[in-house]
Protein backbone atom coordinates (compact mmCIF):
# COMPACT_ATOMS: atom_id res chain seq x y z
CA UNK A 1 0.00 0.00 0.00
CA UNK A 2 1.77 3.13 -1.21
CA UNK A 3 -0.13 5.33 1.20
CA UNK A 4 1.58 3.83 4.22
CA UNK A 5 4.52 6.26 4.29
CA UNK A 6 2.26 9.28 4.01
CA UNK A 7 2.62 12.33 6.16
CA UNK A 8 -0.30 14.39 7.33
CA UNK A 9 -0.58 18.01 8.37
CA UNK A 10 -2.01 18.29 11.84
CA UNK A 11 -3.32 21.32 13.70
CA UNK A 12 -2.47 20.49 17.28
CA UNK A 13 -3.55 22.76 20.11
CA UNK A 14 -1.14 22.60 23.02
CA UNK A 15 -1.25 24.94 26.00
CA UNK A 16 -3.69 27.19 24.19
CA UNK A 17 -1.54 27.60 21.08
CA UNK A 18 -2.29 25.86 17.81
CA UNK A 19 0.74 24.41 16.04
CA UNK A 20 0.73 23.16 12.49
CA UNK A 21 2.86 20.02 12.38
CA UNK A 22 3.62 17.80 9.43
CA UNK A 23 4.09 14.29 10.72
CA UNK A 24 3.64 10.60 10.14
CA UNK A 25 0.42 9.19 11.60
CA UNK A 26 2.47 6.73 13.64
CA UNK A 27 4.12 9.43 15.75
CA UNK A 28 3.15 9.31 19.41
CA UNK A 29 1.86 12.41 21.16
CA UNK A 30 4.72 12.33 23.69
CA UNK A 31 7.35 12.37 20.93
CA UNK A 32 5.66 15.24 19.12
CA UNK A 33 5.44 17.25 22.34
CA UNK A 34 9.06 16.67 23.25
CA UNK A 35 10.87 16.55 19.95
CA UNK A 36 8.87 18.76 17.65
CA UNK A 37 7.43 21.32 20.04
CA UNK A 38 10.34 21.29 22.50
CA UNK A 39 8.04 20.72 25.46
CA UNK A 40 10.42 18.50 27.40
CA UNK A 41 8.64 18.91 30.73
CA UNK A 42 6.65 15.80 29.83
CA UNK A 43 8.93 12.86 30.51
CA UNK A 44 9.02 9.56 28.67
CA UNK A 45 9.42 6.69 31.13
CA UNK A 46 8.35 3.14 30.41
CA UNK A 47 6.67 3.70 27.00
CA UNK A 48 4.22 0.91 27.90
CA UNK A 49 1.29 2.75 29.53
CA UNK A 50 2.50 1.70 32.97
CA UNK A 51 4.52 4.42 34.69
CA UNK A 52 2.55 7.61 34.04
CA UNK A 53 5.61 9.87 33.64
CA UNK A 54 4.24 11.07 30.27
CA UNK A 55 0.82 12.09 31.65
CA UNK A 56 -0.69 15.21 30.05
CA UNK A 57 -4.22 16.58 30.00
CA UNK A 58 -6.42 16.07 26.93
CA UNK A 59 -9.64 18.06 27.18
CA UNK A 60 -8.87 18.43 30.88
CA UNK A 61 -8.45 14.72 31.64
CA UNK A 62 -5.22 12.86 32.38
CA UNK A 63 -3.91 10.72 29.52
CA UNK A 64 -0.66 8.82 28.98
CA UNK A 65 0.86 10.55 25.97
CA UNK A 66 2.94 7.47 25.07
CA UNK A 67 -0.30 5.67 24.27
CA UNK A 68 -1.95 8.23 22.07
CA UNK A 69 -1.10 9.08 18.48
CA UNK A 70 -0.53 12.78 17.95
CA UNK A 71 -3.11 12.66 15.13
CA UNK A 72 -5.68 11.55 17.70
CA UNK A 73 -5.17 14.96 19.33
CA UNK A 74 -6.85 16.67 16.38
CA UNK A 75 -9.57 19.02 17.59
CA UNK A 76 -8.65 18.44 21.22
CA UNK A 77 -7.07 20.63 23.85
CA UNK A 78 -3.72 19.29 25.04
CA UNK A 79 -2.18 20.75 28.18
CA UNK A 80 1.29 20.01 29.53
CA UNK A 81 3.17 20.80 32.75
CA UNK A 82 4.66 23.91 31.10
CA UNK A 83 1.22 25.55 31.13
CA UNK A 84 0.32 25.04 34.80
CA UNK A 85 2.15 27.87 36.53
CA UNK A 86 1.01 31.44 35.97
CA UNK A 87 4.38 33.10 35.41
CA UNK A 88 6.23 32.70 38.72
CA UNK A 89 3.07 31.69 40.58
CA UNK A 90 2.82 27.93 40.89
CA UNK A 91 -0.42 26.05 40.32
CA UNK A 92 -1.89 24.89 43.67
CA UNK A 93 -0.89 21.29 42.89
CA UNK A 94 2.69 22.31 42.09
CA UNK A 95 2.82 24.43 45.25
CA UNK A 96 1.52 21.54 47.34
CA UNK A 97 4.14 19.13 45.94
CA UNK A 98 6.80 21.69 46.92
CA UNK A 99 5.26 22.38 50.34
CA UNK A 100 4.78 18.69 51.23
CA UNK A 101 8.05 17.62 49.60
CA UNK A 102 6.18 15.28 47.28
CA UNK A 103 9.22 14.49 45.17
CA UNK A 104 12.81 13.40 45.32
CA UNK A 105 14.52 12.86 41.96
CA UNK A 106 11.65 14.59 40.15
CA UNK A 107 11.42 12.37 37.09
CA UNK A 108 7.85 11.21 37.80
CA UNK A 109 6.77 14.63 39.06
CA UNK A 110 5.38 16.25 35.88
CA UNK A 111 3.21 13.18 35.31
CA UNK A 112 2.22 13.00 38.98
CA UNK A 113 1.23 16.67 38.98
CA UNK A 114 -0.83 16.42 35.77
CA UNK A 115 -2.56 13.23 36.98
CA UNK A 116 -3.29 14.98 40.29
CA UNK A 117 -4.80 18.06 38.61
CA UNK A 118 -7.16 15.73 36.75
CA UNK A 119 -8.13 13.53 39.69
CA UNK A 120 -8.81 16.53 41.93
CA UNK A 121 -10.97 18.04 39.20
CA UNK A 122 -12.94 14.79 38.96
CA UNK A 123 -13.59 14.81 42.71
CA UNK A 124 -11.45 11.75 43.42
CA UNK A 125 -9.33 13.35 46.16
CA UNK A 126 -11.78 12.64 48.97
CA UNK A 127 -9.43 10.70 51.25
CA UNK A 128 -6.07 8.96 51.30
CA UNK A 129 -7.39 5.69 49.92
CA UNK A 130 -9.14 7.37 47.00
CA UNK A 131 -6.03 9.37 46.11
CA UNK A 132 -3.90 6.23 46.17
CA UNK A 133 -6.39 4.42 43.93
CA UNK A 134 -6.57 7.35 41.51
CA UNK A 135 -2.77 7.63 41.32
CA UNK A 136 -2.08 3.95 40.75
CA UNK A 137 -1.14 4.67 37.14
CA UNK A 138 1.81 6.81 38.25
CA UNK A 139 4.93 5.13 39.57
CA UNK A 140 7.48 6.79 41.82
CA UNK A 141 10.62 4.91 42.72
CA UNK A 142 11.94 7.39 45.31
CA UNK A 143 9.35 8.68 47.72
CA UNK A 144 7.24 5.76 48.84
CA UNK A 145 4.24 7.94 47.89
CA UNK A 146 3.50 9.23 51.40
CA UNK A 147 4.30 12.86 50.67
CA UNK A 148 2.78 12.70 47.20
CA UNK A 149 -0.55 11.63 48.65
CA UNK A 150 -0.24 14.33 51.32
CA UNK A 151 0.43 16.92 48.60
CA UNK A 152 -2.61 15.89 46.58
CA UNK A 153 -4.90 16.02 49.62
CA UNK A 154 -3.48 19.40 50.61
CA UNK A 155 -3.91 20.80 47.09
CA UNK A 156 -7.44 19.43 46.87
CA UNK A 157 -8.37 21.17 50.09
CA UNK A 158 -6.97 24.45 48.83
CA UNK A 159 -8.66 24.18 45.43
CA UNK A 160 -11.96 23.27 47.08
CA UNK A 161 -11.68 26.25 49.45
CA UNK A 162 -11.15 28.58 46.47
CA UNK A 163 -14.24 27.35 44.64
Amino acid at each position, binding site marked *: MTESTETVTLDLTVNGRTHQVELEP*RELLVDVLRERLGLTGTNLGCETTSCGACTVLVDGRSVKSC*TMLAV*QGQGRDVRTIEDLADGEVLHPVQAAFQRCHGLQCGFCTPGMVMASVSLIDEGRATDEQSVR*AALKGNLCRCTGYQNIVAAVLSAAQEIEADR
Partner: protein
Amino acid sequence: MTPVPFAYRRATSVQEAISLLTEHGEEAKAIAGGHSLLPIMKLRFAAPELLVDLGGIPDLDHIRVEGDEMVLGALARHSDLELSALLREEVPLLAHTAGLVGDCQIRHRGTLGGSVAHGDPSADLPATLVALRATVVVDGPGGRRTVPVDHFYTGFLETALAPDELVVELRVPRTGDAPWGYQKFRRRGIDWAIVGVAYQSEPGAGGIGLVNMGPTTLRAAAAEEALRAGADPAQVAALADQDTAPVGDASGSPEYRRHLARVLLSRALAGRNSS
Protein backbone atom coordinates in the same frame (compact mmCIF):
# COMPACT_ATOMS: atom_id res chain seq x y z
CA MET B 1 8.64 2.42 20.59
CA THR B 2 6.91 3.50 17.43
CA PRO B 3 4.55 1.42 15.31
CA VAL B 4 5.49 0.59 11.72
CA PRO B 5 4.15 3.13 9.21
CA PHE B 6 0.47 3.06 8.41
CA ALA B 7 -2.06 5.21 6.60
CA TYR B 8 -4.58 7.11 8.68
CA ARG B 9 -8.14 8.20 8.01
CA ARG B 10 -10.36 10.01 10.45
CA ALA B 11 -14.00 9.03 10.02
CA THR B 12 -16.69 11.54 10.87
CA SER B 13 -19.58 9.07 10.78
CA VAL B 14 -20.17 5.37 11.40
CA GLN B 15 -21.05 4.95 7.71
CA GLU B 16 -17.79 6.54 6.60
CA ALA B 17 -15.83 4.28 8.95
CA ILE B 18 -17.59 1.20 7.61
CA SER B 19 -16.94 2.25 3.99
CA LEU B 20 -13.24 2.64 4.73
CA LEU B 21 -13.10 -0.73 6.47
CA THR B 22 -15.00 -2.36 3.60
CA GLU B 23 -12.67 -0.82 1.04
CA HIS B 24 -9.49 -1.95 2.80
CA GLY B 25 -10.61 -5.30 4.24
CA GLU B 26 -8.38 -7.14 6.68
CA GLU B 27 -5.54 -4.65 6.25
CA ALA B 28 -7.53 -1.97 8.03
CA LYS B 29 -8.25 -1.62 11.74
CA ALA B 30 -10.60 0.70 13.58
CA ILE B 31 -9.12 2.67 16.47
CA ALA B 32 -10.98 4.56 19.19
CA GLY B 33 -9.13 5.09 22.49
CA GLY B 34 -6.37 2.84 21.18
CA HIS B 35 -5.55 1.32 24.56
CA SER B 36 -5.74 -2.24 23.28
CA LEU B 37 -4.45 -1.64 19.76
CA LEU B 38 -1.62 0.88 20.21
CA PRO B 39 0.35 -1.16 22.77
CA ILE B 40 0.46 -4.17 20.44
CA MET B 41 1.26 -1.94 17.46
CA LYS B 42 4.16 -0.40 19.40
CA LEU B 43 5.46 -3.91 20.09
CA ARG B 44 4.87 -4.62 16.39
CA PHE B 45 2.67 -7.62 17.13
CA ALA B 46 0.09 -5.84 14.98
CA ALA B 47 0.82 -3.83 11.84
CA PRO B 48 -2.39 -2.71 10.14
CA GLU B 49 -1.83 -0.79 6.89
CA LEU B 50 -4.67 1.59 7.59
CA LEU B 51 -6.06 2.95 10.85
CA VAL B 52 -9.62 4.23 10.73
CA ASP B 53 -9.94 6.64 13.64
CA LEU B 54 -13.42 6.70 15.16
CA GLY B 55 -12.51 9.69 17.33
CA GLY B 56 -14.22 12.18 15.02
CA ILE B 57 -17.63 10.47 15.16
CA PRO B 58 -20.05 12.57 17.21
CA ASP B 59 -22.83 11.28 19.47
CA LEU B 60 -21.61 7.73 19.94
CA ASP B 61 -20.81 8.02 23.64
CA HIS B 62 -24.37 8.11 24.96
CA ILE B 63 -25.47 6.58 28.26
CA ARG B 64 -29.27 6.53 28.38
CA VAL B 65 -32.33 4.60 29.44
CA GLU B 66 -34.59 3.01 26.82
CA GLY B 67 -37.44 1.04 28.35
CA ASP B 68 -36.04 -1.83 30.44
CA GLU B 69 -32.55 -1.32 29.08
CA MET B 70 -29.56 0.95 29.40
CA VAL B 71 -28.17 1.84 26.01
CA LEU B 72 -24.48 2.63 25.93
CA GLY B 73 -22.64 4.11 22.96
CA ALA B 74 -19.47 2.31 21.88
CA LEU B 75 -17.37 5.46 22.31
CA ALA B 76 -18.37 5.90 25.96
CA ARG B 77 -15.09 5.84 27.83
CA HIS B 78 -14.52 3.69 30.91
CA SER B 79 -14.39 6.85 33.04
CA ASP B 80 -17.74 7.99 31.57
CA LEU B 81 -19.31 4.71 32.69
CA GLU B 82 -17.58 4.80 36.07
CA LEU B 83 -18.65 8.35 36.88
CA SER B 84 -22.16 8.26 35.37
CA ALA B 85 -24.68 8.83 38.17
CA LEU B 86 -27.35 7.31 35.92
CA LEU B 87 -25.40 4.11 35.26
CA ARG B 88 -24.45 3.79 38.93
CA GLU B 89 -28.13 3.77 39.73
CA GLU B 90 -29.38 1.62 36.85
CA VAL B 91 -26.56 -0.92 36.42
CA PRO B 92 -24.19 -0.53 39.37
CA LEU B 93 -22.21 -3.68 38.50
CA LEU B 94 -21.16 -2.18 35.16
CA ALA B 95 -20.28 1.23 36.60
CA HIS B 96 -18.23 -0.39 39.37
CA THR B 97 -16.39 -2.73 36.99
CA ALA B 98 -15.58 0.13 34.60
CA GLY B 99 -13.90 1.89 37.52
CA LEU B 100 -11.54 -1.06 38.00
CA VAL B 101 -10.17 -1.07 34.44
CA GLY B 102 -6.49 -0.04 34.31
CA ASP B 103 -5.94 3.35 35.91
CA CYS B 104 -7.50 6.81 35.57
CA GLN B 105 -5.46 7.71 32.49
CA ILE B 106 -6.38 4.45 30.75
CA ARG B 107 -10.05 4.92 31.65
CA HIS B 108 -9.98 8.44 30.18
CA ARG B 109 -9.05 7.00 26.77
CA GLY B 110 -10.27 3.41 26.59
CA THR B 111 -13.78 2.88 25.29
CA LEU B 112 -16.52 0.36 26.01
CA GLY B 113 -16.78 -0.60 22.34
CA GLY B 114 -13.02 -1.03 22.06
CA SER B 115 -12.84 -3.32 25.07
CA VAL B 116 -15.77 -5.40 23.79
CA ALA B 117 -14.44 -5.64 20.21
CA HIS B 118 -10.85 -6.48 21.21
CA GLY B 119 -12.08 -9.67 22.87
CA ASP B 120 -9.33 -10.14 25.43
CA PRO B 121 -10.41 -12.86 27.90
CA SER B 122 -8.52 -11.06 30.68
CA ALA B 123 -10.55 -7.85 30.26
CA ASP B 124 -13.04 -6.85 32.95
CA LEU B 125 -15.95 -5.46 30.95
CA PRO B 126 -16.75 -8.45 28.69
CA ALA B 127 -17.25 -10.77 31.69
CA THR B 128 -19.49 -8.18 33.30
CA LEU B 129 -21.53 -7.97 30.09
CA VAL B 130 -21.85 -11.77 30.14
CA ALA B 131 -23.16 -11.63 33.72
CA LEU B 132 -25.62 -8.95 32.61
CA ARG B 133 -26.70 -10.86 29.46
CA ALA B 134 -25.95 -7.82 27.35
CA THR B 135 -26.62 -7.44 23.65
CA VAL B 136 -23.93 -6.18 21.30
CA VAL B 137 -25.20 -3.91 18.53
CA VAL B 138 -23.04 -4.18 15.42
CA ASP B 139 -23.14 -2.03 12.30
CA GLY B 140 -21.68 -2.99 8.93
CA PRO B 141 -22.19 -2.77 5.17
CA GLY B 142 -25.29 -4.95 5.51
CA GLY B 143 -26.81 -2.69 8.15
CA ARG B 144 -27.28 -3.10 11.87
CA ARG B 145 -27.56 -6.44 13.64
CA THR B 146 -27.64 -7.52 17.27
CA VAL B 147 -25.54 -10.27 18.78
CA PRO B 148 -26.17 -11.68 22.27
CA VAL B 149 -22.89 -11.41 24.16
CA ASP B 150 -22.84 -15.23 24.53
CA HIS B 151 -22.42 -15.54 20.75
CA PHE B 152 -19.97 -12.67 20.40
CA TYR B 153 -16.74 -14.24 21.65
CA THR B 154 -15.62 -17.01 19.33
CA GLY B 155 -11.97 -17.58 20.24
CA PHE B 156 -8.86 -15.97 21.71
CA LEU B 157 -9.06 -12.33 20.56
CA GLU B 158 -11.68 -13.47 18.07
CA THR B 159 -15.23 -12.20 17.87
CA ALA B 160 -18.31 -12.44 15.68
CA LEU B 161 -17.34 -9.08 14.11
CA ALA B 162 -16.49 -9.13 10.40
CA PRO B 163 -13.45 -6.98 9.44
CA ASP B 164 -15.78 -4.29 8.10
CA GLU B 165 -18.14 -4.23 11.07
CA LEU B 166 -18.08 -2.02 14.14
CA VAL B 167 -19.52 -2.37 17.61
CA VAL B 168 -21.73 0.71 17.89
CA GLU B 169 -23.77 0.11 21.03
CA LEU B 170 -24.27 -2.14 24.04
CA ARG B 171 -27.72 -2.84 25.47
CA VAL B 172 -27.84 -3.92 29.09
CA PRO B 173 -30.85 -4.73 31.27
CA ARG B 174 -31.54 -2.23 34.02
CA THR B 175 -30.82 -4.10 37.24
CA GLY B 176 -31.31 -1.34 39.78
CA ASP B 177 -30.41 -2.45 43.29
CA ALA B 178 -30.60 -6.23 42.66
CA PRO B 179 -27.59 -7.86 44.34
CA TRP B 180 -24.31 -7.99 42.40
CA GLY B 181 -20.61 -8.44 43.01
CA TYR B 182 -17.36 -8.01 41.09
CA GLN B 183 -14.15 -9.63 42.20
CA LYS B 184 -10.86 -8.91 40.43
CA PHE B 185 -7.76 -10.63 41.73
CA ARG B 186 -4.43 -9.08 40.78
CA ARG B 187 -1.11 -8.43 42.45
CA ARG B 188 -0.82 -4.70 41.69
CA GLY B 189 -3.57 -2.18 41.16
CA ILE B 190 -2.84 -1.62 37.49
CA ASP B 191 -2.49 -5.30 36.56
CA TRP B 192 -4.95 -7.26 34.48
CA ALA B 193 -7.05 -9.71 36.48
CA ILE B 194 -5.35 -13.04 37.12
CA VAL B 195 -8.94 -14.19 37.52
CA GLY B 196 -12.10 -12.12 37.81
CA VAL B 197 -15.71 -12.97 38.55
CA ALA B 198 -18.77 -10.85 37.78
CA TYR B 199 -22.07 -11.75 39.42
CA GLN B 200 -25.45 -10.19 38.80
CA SER B 201 -28.63 -11.54 40.37
CA GLU B 202 -31.89 -11.36 38.51
CA PRO B 203 -35.31 -12.64 39.44
CA GLY B 204 -35.19 -16.43 39.52
CA ALA B 205 -31.74 -16.72 37.99
CA GLY B 206 -28.28 -15.26 38.03
CA GLY B 207 -25.61 -14.28 35.59
CA ILE B 208 -21.98 -15.13 36.26
CA GLY B 209 -19.14 -14.08 33.94
CA LEU B 210 -15.53 -15.25 34.27
CA VAL B 211 -12.37 -13.29 33.43
CA ASN B 212 -9.27 -15.18 32.28
CA MET B 213 -10.60 -18.71 32.79
CA GLY B 214 -10.19 -19.77 29.18
CA PRO B 215 -9.43 -18.50 25.67
CA THR B 216 -12.55 -16.34 25.74
CA THR B 217 -14.68 -14.61 28.31
CA LEU B 218 -16.80 -17.40 29.81
CA ARG B 219 -20.17 -17.91 31.45
CA ALA B 220 -20.11 -20.09 34.57
CA ALA B 221 -23.09 -22.08 33.33
CA ALA B 222 -22.99 -24.88 35.92
CA ALA B 223 -22.84 -22.41 38.80
CA GLU B 224 -25.71 -20.40 37.30
CA GLU B 225 -27.76 -23.59 36.98
CA ALA B 226 -27.15 -24.44 40.64
CA LEU B 227 -28.09 -20.91 41.63
CA ARG B 228 -31.37 -21.18 39.74
CA ALA B 229 -32.05 -24.53 41.41
CA GLY B 230 -31.71 -22.88 44.81
CA ALA B 231 -28.35 -24.34 45.88
CA ASP B 232 -26.63 -22.60 48.76
CA PRO B 233 -23.80 -20.16 47.93
CA ALA B 234 -21.02 -22.60 48.89
CA GLN B 235 -22.38 -25.23 46.49
CA VAL B 236 -22.74 -22.64 43.73
CA ALA B 237 -19.21 -21.31 44.23
CA ALA B 238 -17.77 -24.83 44.11
CA LEU B 239 -18.96 -25.05 40.48
CA ALA B 240 -17.31 -21.79 39.34
CA ASP B 241 -14.52 -23.48 37.39
CA GLN B 242 -16.58 -26.25 35.81
CA ASP B 243 -16.11 -26.45 32.02
CA THR B 244 -13.38 -23.81 32.05
CA ALA B 245 -9.90 -24.06 30.51
CA PRO B 246 -7.59 -21.64 32.32
CA VAL B 247 -3.99 -21.38 31.15
CA GLY B 248 -0.90 -21.53 33.33
CA ASP B 249 1.50 -18.60 33.11
CA ALA B 250 3.78 -16.47 35.27
CA SER B 251 0.75 -15.30 37.27
CA GLY B 252 -0.45 -18.75 38.25
CA SER B 253 -1.09 -22.36 37.29
CA PRO B 254 -4.42 -23.60 35.90
CA GLU B 255 -5.17 -25.18 39.31
CA TYR B 256 -4.47 -21.88 41.05
CA ARG B 257 -6.84 -20.09 38.70
CA ARG B 258 -9.55 -22.70 39.30
CA HIS B 259 -9.15 -22.20 43.04
CA LEU B 260 -9.34 -18.43 42.61
CA ALA B 261 -12.53 -18.68 40.53
CA ARG B 262 -14.26 -20.65 43.30
CA VAL B 263 -13.10 -18.30 46.06
CA LEU B 264 -13.88 -15.16 44.08
CA LEU B 265 -17.36 -16.40 43.17
CA SER B 266 -18.15 -17.09 46.81
CA ARG B 267 -17.12 -13.49 47.60
CA ALA B 268 -19.04 -12.04 44.68
CA LEU B 269 -22.18 -13.97 45.67
CA ALA B 270 -21.86 -12.38 49.10
CA GLY B 271 -21.90 -8.97 47.38
CA ARG B 272 -18.26 -8.25 48.15
CA ASN B 273 -16.46 -6.11 45.60
CA SER B 274 -12.87 -5.46 44.74
CA SER B 275 -11.76 -1.86 45.01
